[in-house]
């Protein structure tokens, strides 16, 4: 591994100070399940690791009047245990529950999943459909960026080297809204998504879909929002025709690559099927709330 210097500041100010004055390249550490592996490959390089887990709030999740404020470093095992969150965002919780093994979930965080910006990251489509916003802190203050705009490419996001993700804000959904996330993997667990789809739907009292969001993962350089798939659902009772149209819209929006895990054609097809199924699950969940 590279020659590291390790700091675990206990305030945000100190962390930002470290990031903006460091002479060597800096890496922010949450659970390390991506970062520690990535650093193993490097040699003869100097690096400052800033462990942000001791900063107050980084591992907490608290409700305010209109949103959930999620500390980006909270482990998935803490997050998935939170019944209050599960009740409101079941799709986001099921996405976090899919990451790695029990051991990996003991450390892996949603913020790390987001900042690592893998095209196949499981929680990102679910964050996008729930309109999550990144709160970013740098030496000149804070800024807010929607998750779908935060990602800029494979493994890339819009954080400057002296910036830190300090919270993920997820607005409380409208009444009669629910979400779902599905991924396709060749095994039953411990695998990376070949395609993934998250859907959030709002139904009126007659079961007509009044609002929807669809996001797809592992089928483009970043997870993407698919407004055309949402439009296919809005105004319908999510009948077969509407679901079919949403599936076609997701397949159309996908821009996948072929690799040993799946071909372009396969990924395009599967992401449509997942969209359809996730929409149905989300709608059934509305009935249950």
């Amino acid at each position, binding site marked *: 591994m590279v020659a590291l210097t390790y700091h675990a500041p206990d305030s945000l100010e100190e962390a930002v100070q470290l990031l903006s004055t460091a002479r060597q390249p800096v890496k922010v550490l949450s659970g390390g399940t991506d970062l520690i592996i990535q650093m193993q490959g490097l040699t003869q390089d100097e690096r400052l690791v800033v462990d942000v887990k001791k900063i107050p709030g980084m591992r907490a999740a608290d409700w305010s009047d209109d949103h959930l404020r999620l500390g980006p470093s909270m482990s998935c095992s803490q997050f998935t245990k939170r019944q209050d969150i599960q009740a409101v965002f079941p799709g986001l919780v099921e996405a976090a529950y899919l990451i790695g093994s029990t051991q990996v979930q*003991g450390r892996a965080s949603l913020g790390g999943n987001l900042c690592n910006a893998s095209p196949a990251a499981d929680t990102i489509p679910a964050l996008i459909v729930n309109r999550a916003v990144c709160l970013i802190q740098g030496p000149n203050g804070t800024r807010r960026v929607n998750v779908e705009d935060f990602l800029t490419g494979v493994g890339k996001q819009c954080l400057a080297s002296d910036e830190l993700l300090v919270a993920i804000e997820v607005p409380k959904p409208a009444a009669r809204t629910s979400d779902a996330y599905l991924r396709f993997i060749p095994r039953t667990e411990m695998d990376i998504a070949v395609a993934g789809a998250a859907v959030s739907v709002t139904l009126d009292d007659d079961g007509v879909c009044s609002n929807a969001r669809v996001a797809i993962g592992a089928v483009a350089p970043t997870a993407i929002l698919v407004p055309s798939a949402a439009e296919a659902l809005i105004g319908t009772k999510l009948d077969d025709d509407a679901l079919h149209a949403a599936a076609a819209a997701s397949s159309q929006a996908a821009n996948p690559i072929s690799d040993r895990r799946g071909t372009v054609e396969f990924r395009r097809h599967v992401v449509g099927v997942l969209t359809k199924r996730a929409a149905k699950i989300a709608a059934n969940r509305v009935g249950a709330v």
Partner: protein
Amino acid sequence: MNGVTVSAKVNGDAVQYVCPADESLLDVLRNRLNLTGVKEGCGTGDCGACSITLDGRLVCACLVLGAEAEGREIGTVEGLSEGGKLHPLQEEFIEKAALQCGICTPGFLVAAKSLLERNPNPTEEEIRYALAGNLCRCTGYDKIVRAVQSAAKIMRRGKKAAR
């Protein structure tokens, strides 16, 4: 070397060590604290041979920096037996022949103990799901699942008797 001085607790005992900032907790446990029960199978979070608990939560020691353990409680397989008496999981792994080469065994034991603390009466499916992050090249898993089921039963009975 950028040495970091760390004070932590391992299996209830206070420990102190100095390690380079890039050293994994797995290497610290094995090479500095001589706790060689914890094994390295992959070093990348895939095999679970390095399973330990950190403040009660199951993690891979290969994906934790030694420096991160400051002030934390670490649990390893060495902490399972009490006063020389094996833990029911250890007894049942032997009884049911749930190990062959044994490299995966400490990780399975620590992970299974953590599962049974959260869920004293897991179904076979729950056991297989909870242990999906532990790989074994020898046994075919079936005997491991049986051993965990049988230990769970013994532990539930023990709890009832203690009441």
